[in-house]
């Protein structure tokens, strides 16, 4: 058992003593506190940044620059009445928020926040856990959080949340495939599943970051897929307020709603951190030779990179219009999944030998041409003469479809 633990985390090398237990407890508490604190700041940051982009002032009443706005919101939600709709399935309705929140908390546990510290003679990794399955834990947890969304919508016993949860679960499952395959490319070059190894393998400078090493494509696929996985704009068809009231949590109020809200922002932060871990070298960066403070710089680099992505999410929300649902599915299934699969095969080829790499690239190119042709034929058949759908142009708007139906009826 000790041999197993030693390969996982250097902290357990000399057996488990009370000091080791204490360090583990401190790590867990610290990670929880950091995540909660950063959620409070993230909510404020998002509201402030987006109001700046929309020429508004944003929160300003509570605390300096409105910093305490999130706490005020939390207090308000805390004192609101907790409603359970009459048509709800009570057990599942109560369970669902936790199924969203707990995976959000667990995923953060595998993010390496900094380098290795030495506390009381024990080497301590600055991450809560470094399981051998590492990054697979993230995939498992995102698989579990699907349940939260799906069950929340269904258990509400109400029409719009149900539609939203259908959309959400379909969207999250479809994008998980592309997400998984880009993660496979990262695992291929690293040769390990552990997030700690992924980060250390990128530690030798900017040219070793997976962003550059794998070509930019996996990174781009990953950021798109993860945005869809988070149901954040421009992929927020799940809670499209003009169509579905408020999405799967329409019927939730008070603290249960607060849990969903919390989990959403927690996931945003965790996924920003995950992107930094997988593609930008995590805490890697320039460290000046300052006595006793060298450990601080990796953490600072990590925070700077993560905040960069957090800002990117806010920027997406302000700048990009929401996709239509069929466009979301098109992008996921017809573009991202084939692209990520092709790129994965190419990376695998180049890892064996350059000749194999070029052969694979050629094969992928041929497959791409074939696939494009197949999509063309499929579209032609669907929109063609014997199609049950009326032809109203390349990408019909709902209103146009409606008009086409009524026209056909009138004839």
């Amino acid at each position: 058992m000790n041999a197993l633990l030693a390969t996982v985390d250097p902290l357990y090398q000399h057996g488990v003593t009370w000091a080791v237990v204490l360090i583990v407890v401190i790590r867990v508490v610290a990670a929880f506190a950091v995540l909660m604190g950063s959620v409070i700041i993230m909510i404020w940051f998002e509201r402030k940044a987006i109001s700046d982009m929309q020429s508004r002032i944003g929160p300003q009443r509570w605390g300096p620059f409105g910093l305490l706005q999130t706490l005020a919101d939390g207090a308000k939600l805390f004192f609101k009445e907790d409603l359970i709709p009459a048509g709800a399935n009570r057990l599942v309705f109560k369970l669902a928020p936790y199924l969203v929140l707990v995976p959000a908390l667990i995923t953060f546990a595998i993010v390496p926040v900094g380098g290795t510290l030495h506390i009381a003679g024990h080497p301590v990794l600055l991450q809560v856990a470094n399981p051998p399955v590492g990054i697979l834990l993230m995939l498992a947890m995102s698989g579990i959080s699907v349940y939260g969304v799906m069950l929340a919508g269904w258990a509400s016993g109400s029409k719009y949340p149900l539609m939203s949860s259908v959309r959400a679960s379909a969207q999250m499952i479809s994008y998980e495939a592309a997400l998984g395959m880009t993660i496979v490319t990262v695992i291929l070059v690293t040769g390990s599943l552990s997030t700690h190894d992924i980060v250390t393998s990128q530690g030798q400078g900017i040219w070793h970051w997976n962003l550059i090493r794998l070509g930019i494509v996996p990174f781009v696929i990953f950021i798109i897929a993860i945005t869809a996985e988070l149901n954040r704009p421009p992929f927020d068809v799940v809670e499209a307020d003009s169509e579905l009231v408020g999405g799967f949590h329409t019927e939730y109020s008070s603290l249960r709603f607060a849990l969903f809200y919390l989990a959403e922002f927690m996931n945003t932060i965790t996924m920003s951190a995950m992107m930094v871990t997988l593609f930008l070298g995590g805490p890697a960066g320039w460290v000046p030779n300052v006595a006793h403070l060298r450990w601080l710089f990796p953490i600072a680099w990590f925070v700077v990179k993560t905040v960069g992505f957090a800002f990117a999410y806010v920027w997406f929300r302000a700048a990009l219009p929401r996709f239509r649902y069929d466009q979301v599915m098109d992008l996921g299934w017809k573009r991202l999944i084939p692209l990520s699969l092709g790129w994965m095969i190419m990376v695998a080829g180049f890892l064996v030998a350059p000749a194999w790499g070029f052969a694979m690239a050629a094969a992928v190119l041929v497959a791409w041409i074939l696939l494009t042709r197949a999509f063309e034929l499929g579209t032609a058949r669907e929109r063609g003469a014997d199609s049950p759908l009326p032809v109203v142009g390349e990408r019909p708007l709902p209103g146009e479809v409606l008009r086409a139906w009524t026209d056909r009826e009138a004839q």
Partner: protein
Amino acid sequence: MIAIAYGWPDVLVFATAAILIVVGALGVIATRHPVHAALSLIMTLFGVAVAFVAQSADFLAAVEIIVYAGAIVVLFLFVIMFLGVDRDEGTRVEPLVGQRALAALGVVITVAGLITLMARSHWVTGATSVSTAGAPLASGSGNVRQLGTAVFTTYLFAFEATAALLIIAVVGAVVLARREQRRDAEEDTPDTPDTPDTSAASSDLEGSER
């Protein structure tokens, strides 16, 4: 006695996992509501994953959660929730005549077989595996590597046969689903601009609002 042989933490972990597995499994067959049954199934899968981790089969545990809990039970729930299967079924009428007697017979045979197996054969325990020809598995991240090597070298044919089988199943499912859809579309020319998914959702709602 067990605790002396294996150490308290291991026993505790095993007990927790076993309780999760058994309670979940009972829940699957005992709860009346199909969605609750599916949730119990997830609980069982989690218990199995914990048991895998306790035996240092971390990769299997992760795959268990990703594939079974993350994809397959989601599919079950999809079917239960959106195809309106979540109604109480009358259990008094036997859909297939003689089904219950046959099921009881099957249970008896399986249980008897298991008991004879347990009584007459030696169970191989410990971290040995086919992939290393009886040598112990490496612990930690090493066993993912061993597993990968075994699957993609020695057992490549079996692996690819499984992949082909899955693809055939997927293609078959798509063909069946599409044919049905087209016939529906031809049969009833829609007179209302109602998209099929909203009507399915609303008809399901009637079921769940009971």
